[in-house]
């Protein structure tokens, strides 16, 4: 009984540590709500760490071209992500026209994009750190950086 308890504690501890590691980079949240009747409603919350880890298992030839394209802009992307990570939270872009409202906000280490148009509302929240890791992973697929 004591042994079972120890094994159970071991599993619980491992699960807790794994959970903490997986959620350490935050979560990607994608929510799409189609406004028409019978429209699709999707709400997806994924640990951000999964993206760069998953990209490691994607065969290089699928990412090579994307990697080469990304590498040209890597200094700018790196600077932008690092600059965004360091700057305070707040609204960055807000566009309103008669049909559509788009906003880009930095909030708690994530970039949050909201789009509201007559057909659908879309909400995407992506942690900056995970974005950097994913872009680095894609860029490295195009050969050594």
């Amino acid at each position, binding site marked *: 009984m004591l042994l079972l308890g120890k094994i159970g504690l071991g599993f619980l501890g491992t699960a807790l540590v794994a959970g903490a590691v997986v959620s350490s980079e935050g979560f990607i949240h994608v929510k799409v709500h189609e406004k028409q009747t019978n429209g699709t409603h999707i709400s997806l919350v994924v640990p951000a760490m999964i993206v760069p880890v998953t990209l490691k298992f994607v065969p290089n030839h699928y990412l090579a071209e994307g990697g080469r394209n990304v590498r040209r802009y890597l200094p700018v992307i790196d600077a932008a992500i690092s600059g965004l990570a360091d700057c305070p939270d707040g609204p960055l*872009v807000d566009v309103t026209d008669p049909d559509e409202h788009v906003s880009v906000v930095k909030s708690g280490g994530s970039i949050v994009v909201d789009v509201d148009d007559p057909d659908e509302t879309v909400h995407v929240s992506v942690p900056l750190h995970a974005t950097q890791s994913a872009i680095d992973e894609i860029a490295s697929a195009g050969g050594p950086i």
Partner: protein
Amino acid sequence: MKTILPVLAVLCMGTVALAAPAERYLHVKVDDPVGREHVRVNIPLSLAEKVIPAINQGQLRDGKVEIGEFHANGVDLKMLFDAVQSAPDGEFVTVQEPDTDVRVAKSNGKMIVHVIDKEGKEKVDVTIPWEVAQALASSGDKQLNVEAAIQALERAGDTTLVTVTDNSQTIRVWIDSRNTSD
């Protein structure tokens, strides 16, 4: 109690002195009441300061914009700026044409450009803090040093840089320490 108060006061002043300076923002606001379009952009200057030097595309390289077509005809821009800086406030250039009025002046440490396009009914006001203008021209007569200008903007006080008004829309570009445009 008497001894602890001065210590607390010193600690408070030290905290204020050591506190990070407030983030400065470049705001762009476009309002088109006719088309009912509104655009708000708030760019932290620290972000611009990091991103601009990383862009090496077209005429923008290492935080500087090449202005190869601009001919200074041997005029030392830096000396010109120094001379204008030490000159008293006043109007330096006034051009009045049937369709356009242009006025360039120096006022309260700022360079001010007013353009009125009478045909397009467009009015443009540009106000550049003197330090920013000098920073822009700090890389010689063939380049505009955008990176230095952004650094100078961070030190400048709250100010409206550009306003453009025409029949259908108004555009305002300004800097302050607020993270929203409204």
